[in-house]
């Protein structure tokens, strides 16, 4: 019985319920936007997912900075966990964005500043994860990965500035049917976006927490192995001392 209650009030269940409600709101409840048509509904997913990707980057940079400063493994674990989730969210944000752009802007991809910046950042954090996979384990790996994450964070405003300047010089060709029209939705748009953002934020936190805990268990096993070695060495030492004296 307690198990059932625990499951019902668990964050995973909460996330599932919220996600289901959000999907219902998006697919059934909210009226179709008149200018863009049904495709506009993907924005209710796209915006919160992009928000999750952004949170990912912020947490990676903050975690990496704190790791370099405090040298505490907690921060490193947090950084990797949110990089992993952030990269997935970033990829989904790019994908949903393209699905929306094709009918509305008439192109899958354009040199718009936010798109360019997202894509470049996506690549930087993919490189971050690949670096971690390729580098021999140890504190040096954590340190170097943290440095990459921080370089990515520092690069972000520069990339955005450059992409912005670039898209001014090359105005994107947005020729779709409803490129610049006002939304026909009033408050209901806000309600759905809010609900969706809450659901995806919770999902993001949950996923990061799960990845974090897996890392933590891995580290605990590693430490246990090491300490086990240490204990047997100490015992051996003691028996040694007795033997020789």
């Amino acid at each position: 019985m307690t198990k059932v209650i625990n499951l019902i009030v668990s964050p995973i269940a909460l996330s599932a319920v919220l996600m289901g409600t959000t999907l219902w709101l998006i697919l059934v409840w909210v009226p179709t936007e008149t200018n863009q048509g049904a495709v506009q509904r993907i924005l209710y997913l796209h915006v919160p997912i992009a928000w999750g990707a952004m949170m990912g980057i912020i947490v990676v940079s903050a975690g990496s900075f704190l790791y370099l400063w405090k040298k505490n493994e907690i921060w490193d674990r947090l950084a990797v966990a949110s990089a992993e989730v952030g990269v997935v969210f970033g990829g989904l944000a790019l994908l949903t964005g393209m699905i929306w752009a094709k009918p509305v802007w008439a192109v899958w991809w354009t040199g718009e500043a936010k798109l360019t910046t997202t894509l470049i950042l996506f690549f930087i954090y993919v490189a971050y994860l690949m670096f971690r996979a390729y580098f021999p384990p140890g504190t040096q790996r954590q340190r170097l990965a943290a440095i990459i994450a921080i370089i990515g964070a520092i690069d972000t405003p520069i990339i955005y500035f450059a992409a912005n300047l670039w898209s001014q010089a090359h105005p994107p060709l947005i020729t779709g049917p409803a490129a610049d029209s006002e939304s026909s939705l009033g408050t209901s748009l806000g309600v759905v976006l809010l609900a969706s953002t809450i659901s995806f934020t919770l999902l993001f936190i949950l996923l990061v927490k799960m990845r974090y805990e897996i890392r933590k268990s891995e580290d605990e096993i590693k430490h246990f192995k090491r300490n086990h070695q240490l204990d047997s060495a100490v015992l051996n030492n003691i028996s040694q001392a007795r033997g020789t004296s």
Partner: protein
Amino acid sequence: MRESLAVIWAIGRKDLLLETRNKDVIVAISVFALLVLMIFTFAIDINQVNAKLTGPGILWASIAFAGVTGLNRAFALELEGNTLEALMLAPISRDLIYAGKMLGNFLFITAAQIIVIPIFAVLFNLAVLRWEMLVVSLLTTIGFSAIGTLFAAMTIRVRAREVMLPLLFLPVVTPLIMAAVESTSHVVNDSSWPEIYQWIQLAIAFDIAFIVISAFIFQQILED
């Protein structure tokens, strides 16, 4: 200060001396870059109309790709005899090692550009040999070598180093490549200095940001 400059110069000069003997890096960068240019002249049928449009982008893409292979090579050189550790044994701060290696890389990429850019001008029939181009090229090369030296040092112990370095290097330098491409295209279109200048500013900001950060962070990279 003078002592620090002497140390930086000693390391950079050592790289040049080795380069005059091996001729690995500059030749590799130049030939690679020229090959990329040549492939593009076939891939895009270059004519008077589209040369101005595509030329600057192709030039900097080829230099970025070629440069990154050169950077890989330049650090492999220090690995061969474990000589990076010999540098680390010296009673000098790590940022001087960084600056010395960066100086070497800067000179390599610059030397390669001296070969590549005139040939580019001929192949694409573009008037790039102007003083503005010198500024663009210097600033871009400074940024490439600042980031490149940092990442090359970081990827030393990575398996598949040859793959990892470009994967880290290229996305981070993208804004710099944009600046180089845009200002070069202003140069070939004979634009006025103020138009070029906004991109030059971006390149300067990029260079300063990453030189400062790299010098600051290099200590953390070398020790294991």
